[in-house]
């Protein structure tokens, strides 16, 4: 009697387990489907948006070849280098800004500290690109919206407001014991020494997180880049470039190359992101507990 009951319970558990795994498999297939679809598209021979069968009749590498060689209208290699250049420059500035501000807010006590944090909170509540047009006119006023100055404009836009994104890294600095600073001060270290020689080496995870986050921003943004680079395709970043490939007049010929470009951009971003993920999870759970 007892054994049959145990037997039926374990059978029931096994059925549940099988059901759960089937459910997860189906769901994850649905989840992966759009990504799989992009990859499939990029190897498809048919160029346009209208397809007649789910599985491509013929696979080809031509879309990738076209993307990198047919640069008359859409100069993808150039866009890639543009984005890389802007990303590296703004990454350096942004990282410095974010770390400097969050360290000051976490460790130093000065008069504008509280007002600064309150103002940052208020500024964060305005729709992000409400000021976009105004930024464009200000940059235009400085003559930064023509020719190669667009690079400088983009770098300044991506790193200009960085001092407001201090929440995660400040939270991180808050968790480093203050006793370390005090000990350093007793030993005669200046605050600069404490910052550069003690706290920074201890904060590698947040430094890496900030660098990667800043590096990724120009690859993902298309709103600001579109407004600033305007009508000059030579200074597009990959995001706007790919976005214009899907215009009504281009989509017939460029849908498949778009997918190829998307794959090329997504691979490095995905790798960076998956690497970032552990910091991301830690940062969030830390913020909630705090």
């Amino acid at each position: 009697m007892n054994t049959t009951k145990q037997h039926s319970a374990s059978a029931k558990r096994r059925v549940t387990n099988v059901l759960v795994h089937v459910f997860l498999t189906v769901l994850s297939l649905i989840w992966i489907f759009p990504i799989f679809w992009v990859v499939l598209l990029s190897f498809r021979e048919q160029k346009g948006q209208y397809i007649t069968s789910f599985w491509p009749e013929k696979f080809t590498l031509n879309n990738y070849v076209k993307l990198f060689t047919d640069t008359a209208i859409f100069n993808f290699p150039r866009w890639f280098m543009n984005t890389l250049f802007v990303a590296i420059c703004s990454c350096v500035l942004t990282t410095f800004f974010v770390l400097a501000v969050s360290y000051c807010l976490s460790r130093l006590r000065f008069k504008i500290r509280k007002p600064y944090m309150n103002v940052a909170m208020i500024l964060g509540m305005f729709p992000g690109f409400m000021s976009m047009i105004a930024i464009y006119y200000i940059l235009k006023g400085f003559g930064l919206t023509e020719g190669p100055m667009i690079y400088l404009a983009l770098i300044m836009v991506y790193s200009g407001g960085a001092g407001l994104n201090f929440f995660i890294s400040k939270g991180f600095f808050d968790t480093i014991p203050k006793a370390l600073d005090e000990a350093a001060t007793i030993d005669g270290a200046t605050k600069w020494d404490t910052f550069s020689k003690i706290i920074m080496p201890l904060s590698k995870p947040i430094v890496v997180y900030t660098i990667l986050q800043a590096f990724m921003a120009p690859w993902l943004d298309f709103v600001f880049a579109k407004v600033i680079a305007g009508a000059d395709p030579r200074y597009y970043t990959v995001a706007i470039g790919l976005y214009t490939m899907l215009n009504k007049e281009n989509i017939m010929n460029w849908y498949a190359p778009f997918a190829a470009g998307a794959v090329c951009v997504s691979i490095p971003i995905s790798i960076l992101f998956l690497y970032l993920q552990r910091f991301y999870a830690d940062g969030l759970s830390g913020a909630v507990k705090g």
Partner: protein
Amino acid sequence: MAGLKRKQRIAEFPEVIPVTEAIQKGDIFTKLTCLIMGAGNFARKQIIQGLLFLAAEIGYICFMVFYGVGALHDFMTLGTETQSKVFNEAKQIYEYTTGDNSQLCLLYGVVTIFVTIGFILLWRAAIRSSYIGQLAVSKGNTPITFGQILKELKDRRMHHLLMSFPLLGIVMFTVMPLIFMILMAFTNYDRDHLPPGKLFDWVGLENFGRVLNAGGTLGITFWKVLGWTLIWAFFATFLNYIFGIILALIINRDGTKCKSMWRFLFTLTIAVPQFVSLLVMNTMLQEHGVFNLMAKELFNAGPFPFLSNATWARVTVIIINLWVGIPYTLISVTGILKNIPAELYEAAKVDGANAFVTFFKITMPYMMFVMTPQLIVTFTQNINNFNVIFLLTNGAPATDEYYRGTAGKTDLLVTWLYKLTIDNKDYNLGAVIGILTFILMATLSLLTYRNTGSYKDEEGFS
């Protein structure tokens, strides 16, 4: 109340001397500093500081005389002379005379005001610096030299060194543009008043009246778009949250194998840039897209109007947003779910509760308790969720019912703002929408931030 707060601030930072005190107790040189910046520093033999302050004052005065006063005047009037056509007898052609450009008047006015604010801060610093020098002399010390100040930047004044460039960036690329844009809400800068051809002018609160008045087309559009924005934000937040928790529970339950593989598969979608995944989704959902193709091949059904019918489109964006949002919930709740005390579940099991009862009586209440602040933050983020709507539907389906066809049935306030400013050049209306969105966000945020422990007791940790 404000006075009390001020006193507290002074008590907290005793080394910061109030400017009023410096002027009252200052000697003749300190008082002279109010007129000639740097005078006090020269008297105390701090030549370099004195020269720098003096140079700043001269620079500011020159700026104001040659430029600033005119800019402020234009800022008040926003330009008086319209660009006009004049017939040139000699060349036998019409030539345009350059009139005033209201938009530049506004911009330069704002810049002048910011320069003035910066100068006032510098002026206060000069008086303080002079008074501090005076105190040092009266105590028999040597006043601080320029070299010492530079050295202090690495120690006692390190926040000056580290914060000044980021602050400058914020003022130039966030605060100033925002003020510029907010001011536009009080003008008639729309598609009918575009400089340089035409001038625009201050109109006070008229735009707010037009947008909020539910009688006109503009008002109807605003309230309807606002309604949809709130519905969207509600579903986008709570459906993602609940389904995300359920998925996390399923992955984390004891019997599930390969937990990290499942987590990897579901979070892979975050790794793909949204402009790629959502643009592709858009083409997949079209009439001849792959979803309709599959529906036809597999079930011989359709085509479904995923994005062309208003109700369909609204449901579709909410469902697609599940695809976007659940992975984020999965990442953020996994750690917290593990913190739920196991005794609670064991007790429930002993009492014979099934999975549903445990979920609704234990898991959800616990999660809601821990994560309510974050949920409200997510809610406000969803109100401003530009990417999903813009890339997926771009507001479509369009409707004539809305103001001059500027908004579609799935447009949120932010995407409508984008279309008003970028596509239609109704800058004043865009600015009004932005300000109203801000008020909405601020109200929601005040409800939470004020009540969270981390705001009240920041020093609690460490």
